[in-house]
């Protein structure tokens, strides 16, 4: 088709002279991993709390948790990102907002992206945790309350250890999704993997090589995540349940 392949392009010094194009890709790779992992920790922490709150007997607390989930789950990720990046600094007091906006843009982009991805995913994690808790037979909770555990102790020692082990497979999908969703953050100018791929196309006019490299990098990340989660799943499997011994 008349396309001239040039895999050597990755070793060429970049047009701006700061690095090779491979260096650019590696920067994007590190950015994607750093962003996704920090957002995932945030999502796991917040998602667990919200998921538990959704199942507590208190109507107010479970109602608030439900509102949280519906809010973050039902607004498109891109819209949320723009709200965090463009709108939030305008709502701060003028002096604080201006100081923030004059700070290092990479920090601003990273923070907005991390908060956005973290909260979006936390709503989804919360749903998984809730479904894990509700899938437990009611007898477990009742028995533990009957032998004198408080509600907090029942969650801590009986229900959550079971629920978390049951929801490892759906959590794996969320974990994989967060890496893929992080590509959205290129729209606010964060130079992560997808953005660096596009940069490479603009600068080298070698679209096939660039996008193949990006694809392989995402594949690599997700294969590693998948196998580690498989290992975890096998390790924490509950005996007697589906798939357990």
């Amino acid at each position: 088709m008349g396309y001239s392949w040039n895999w050597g392009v990755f070793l060429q010094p970049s047009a701006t002279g700061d690095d090779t194009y491979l260096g650019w890709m590696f920067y994007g790779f590190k950015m994607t991993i750093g962003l996704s992992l920090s957002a995932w920790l945030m999502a796991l922490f917040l998602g667990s709390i919200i998921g538990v709150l959704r199942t507590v007997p208190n109507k107010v607390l479970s109602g608030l948790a439900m509102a949280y989930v519906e809010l973050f789950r039902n607004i498109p990720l891109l819209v949320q990102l723009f709200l965090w990046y463009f709108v939030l600094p305008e709502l701060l007091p003028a002096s604080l907002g201006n100081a923030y906006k004059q700070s290092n843009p990479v920090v601003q982009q990273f923070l907005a992206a991390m908060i956005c991805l973290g909260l979006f995913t936390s709503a989804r994690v919360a749903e998984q945790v809730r479904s894990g808790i509700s899938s437990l037979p009611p007898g477990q909770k009742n028995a533990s309350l009957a032998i004198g555990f408080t509600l907090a102790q029942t969650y801590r020692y009986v229900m959550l250890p079971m629920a978390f082990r049951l929801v490892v497979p759906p959590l794996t999908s969320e974990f994989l999704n967060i890496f893929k969703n992080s590509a959205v953050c290129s729209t606010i100018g964060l130079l992560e993997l997808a953005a660096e791929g596009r940069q490479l196309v603009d600068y080298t006019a070698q679209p096939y090589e660039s996008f193949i490299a990006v694809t392989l990098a995402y594949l690599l990340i997700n294969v590693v995540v998948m196998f580690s989660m498989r290992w975890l799943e096998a390790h924490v499997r509950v005996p007697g349940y589906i798939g357990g011994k």
Partner: protein
Amino acid sequence: MTNSPRLAMLAMVATTLLSAPAFAQDAGTLKKIKETGVITLGHRESSIPFSYYDDKQQVIGYSQEFMLKAVEAIKADQKLDKLEIKLMPVTSANRITLIQNGTVDIECGSTTNNTERQKQVAFSNTIFVIGTKLMVKKDSGIKDFPDLAGKNVVTTAGTTSERLLRKMNEDKKMGMNVISAKDHGESFLTLETGRAVAFMMDDALLYGETAKAKRPADWDVVGTAQSKEAYGCMVRKDDAAFKKVVDSAIASVMASGDAVKIYNKWFMAPIPPKGLNLNMPLSDEMKALYKAPNDKAFE
């Protein structure tokens, strides 16, 4: 086996269809126009004020006027009583291919003439020269590129400006934070909200953004142009006869003084659709071009 004669026929039809534009190309654009009585013009949809749709979906703009002047010259040159004009919207991604495969005969929009593209197509005499400059808030105190050291600067991803800005930052160790926004609108938003102190882009586009701003008087276009780019009309490569007619049409528009009138109409007066005035004075490069029309690329 009943299928194979049909397949063979299909292949024949396909070959004929595919080779038709190539045939037209070999025969020369002028000859094709004379035989068919039709010329296809490539235009842009939103390159304000070069080539875009007005509110009645008519194609208008500075480049469009030059293209129509060229069409008149072609009609006169070929002694045609009437010449049907077909308009074909093109994008920056497909414009070169459409010229090459014969779909479009000439394209005047906002296409930069550079040596890389000259390997694929030919360019007419330059119709416009832009420089890459800075848009800043009037009270920011920024006058030129050296003032940007250590500041946040925005530009649009994938443009010449982005390349130049990052290179300047690296070469001169200026410590700028370069923000690459995804389009001109987002770049301006970044500037307007105070995230960046300056927006680097082609000056004509910066004047366009200024005119669109909520308070145009707050903004200014400043700085020494970091690069110059020549916009030309694209025609097919190796078709000297056609290029000559187009070139001389553009040259005579410039010689007669019509070019300045066209310039003032699009850059110094309110233009559709919103009645904005870009207020972009004629630059020295443009004056030089009007005095001595040429088809040279700057890079």
